[in-house]
């Protein structure tokens, strides 16, 4: 967490399921310490992009690298060791296990570092999400949706990532909880962590990001600074539901 963020470079990435290609040549860069978002509607391939980066889905073409270290066709267990940690869609917590055990498992790839380092990292995520410390002994499946999302983020942080990937962290959560989680993302970015955020809520994502990419049917159709994208007419019309800032289109 206190480590310097790495830069993530995705070049011409293609992948898919069976013979169906979902990603069709994706170019994305996240510089060290940046918060970059990929927005787009349902089915654009955003989740597939993250799954391909960590290796759940195998790339058929293109490359992924972290600080010039090639990560193409890696596996999720190797990616987390290299410092790329994914907060997956649906959170994928270990439901019957306690909050604390989930966090300890989060540090699995770093468990050579010993107990002292583990305790320190636990303290660190507890300070980011105090509610997790209150619930430490409770099983993960008994947490509220917002708390589960916090646990998912905290678990990913336990691996001391240099690049954090998040898949729709706001999905299904109350505005207050979303604000809390995004506030934490801001803080992590301020500390120098590189973050790639996939979101359907374009307005929310662009408000917190440095830069953004717009994805449509497996391709990047637009990119720019978050401010530019927020001001872009197409983005406003399609993803923010506004036209020249006057009325809602609907």
């Amino acid at each position: 967490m206190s480590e310097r963020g790495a830069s993530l470079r995705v070049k011409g990435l293609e992948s898919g399921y069976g013979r169906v290609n979902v990603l069709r040549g994706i170019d994305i860069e996240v510089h060290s310490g940046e918060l970059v978002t990929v927005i787009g509607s349902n089915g654009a391939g955003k989740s597939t992009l993250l799954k391909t980066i960590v290796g759940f889905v195998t790339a058929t073409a293109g490359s992924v690298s972290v600080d010039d270290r090639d990560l193409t066709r890696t596996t999720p267990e190797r990616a987390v060791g290299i410092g790329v940690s994914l907060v997956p869609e649906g959170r994928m917590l270990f439901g019957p296990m306690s909050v604390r055990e989930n966090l300890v498992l989060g540090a699995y790839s770093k468990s050579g570092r010993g107990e002292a380092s583990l305790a320190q990292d636990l303290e660190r995520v507890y300070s980011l999400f105090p509610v997790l410390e209150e619930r430490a002994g409770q099983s993960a499946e008994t947490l509220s949706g917002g708390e589960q999302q916090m646990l998912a983020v905290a678990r990913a942080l336990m691996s001391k990532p240099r690049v954090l990937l998040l898949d729709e962290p706001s999905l299904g959560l109350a505005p207050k909880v979303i604000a809390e989680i995004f506030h934490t993302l801001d803080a992590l970015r301020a500390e120098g962590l590189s973050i790639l955020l996939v979101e359907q809520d374009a307005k929310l994502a662009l408000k917190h990001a440095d830069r953004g990419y717009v994805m449509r049917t497996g391709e990047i159709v637009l990119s720019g600074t978050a401010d530019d994208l927020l001001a872009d007419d197409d983005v406003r019309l399609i993803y923010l539901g506004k036209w020249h800032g006057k009325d809602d289109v609907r």
Partner: protein
Amino acid sequence: MGGSELLQFVISGLKNGSIYALVSLGFTIVYASTGVINFAQGEFYMLGGMFSVWAFATFGLPLWLAAIVGILLTAATGILFELLAIRPRKDGDQLSLIIITIGGSLLLSSLARHLFGPDELAIPAFTSGPSVRVFGAAIERQTLWIWGLTITAVVILNWVYNKTKLGRALRACAINRDAARLVGVDTRLIVTVSFALAAALGGLAGLSVAPLTQTAFDAGARVGVKGFAAAILGGLGNPIAAVAGGLMLGLIESMSIAYLSSTYKDAISLLVLLLVLFVRPQGLFSRSRREKV
């Protein structure tokens, strides 16, 4: 039936039940990490006995060493089995994997017949001496060994599951494989480890009962069915339930001998298996199958 007679049946039931519990644990451990029923589990039981006999009789190793060699060789067989038969089909569906385990079971028993011959073999009891008498019932010394070894194995396994990094990885894998991979667990290694553990437990069962029942190349199938029934009875995927299921099945069998006839002993476990599958397919002690958040 008198009290001491009944007690004798309970003792016998708990003896067989301990064996079923160990075999059932093997089913549960492999199922938890792969989602597959390993029908070769009974052969690990057979191999545990055969390897020990072989180490003891052919190489003249002391009995305790022969037992350890038996467990280690059985565990090694489990690892080889996973590497050669299961891992290459990692993307295969579960049905094909289950069929592979059935084929593997046949292969292992045939190999054992070639290596060790068709005859029944035995090793001496771990400690000699007369039975221990308790309230008019007799407990053979080997039965005490079986109980002691079973309890030791369960305690160690419980410690590994709850207190070690490996155990956490095994449980994580059972709850959600993809999530386990996300935090860095090498799930392929975990599958191999679970086969090794399952084989070692089966081997332990086979060699600790070998002084009482003798063993032969075809001893695996019958115990495999019992262990499977016990695992289903308890509820697959939960180690404690697997042990409870094993002990219960042993007792049920023993009571059926006491009150019905020994003719039906083997049919009872199949009957229990069917009843559980019809009435309570998740097992007696299981909350639900694989939980996801």
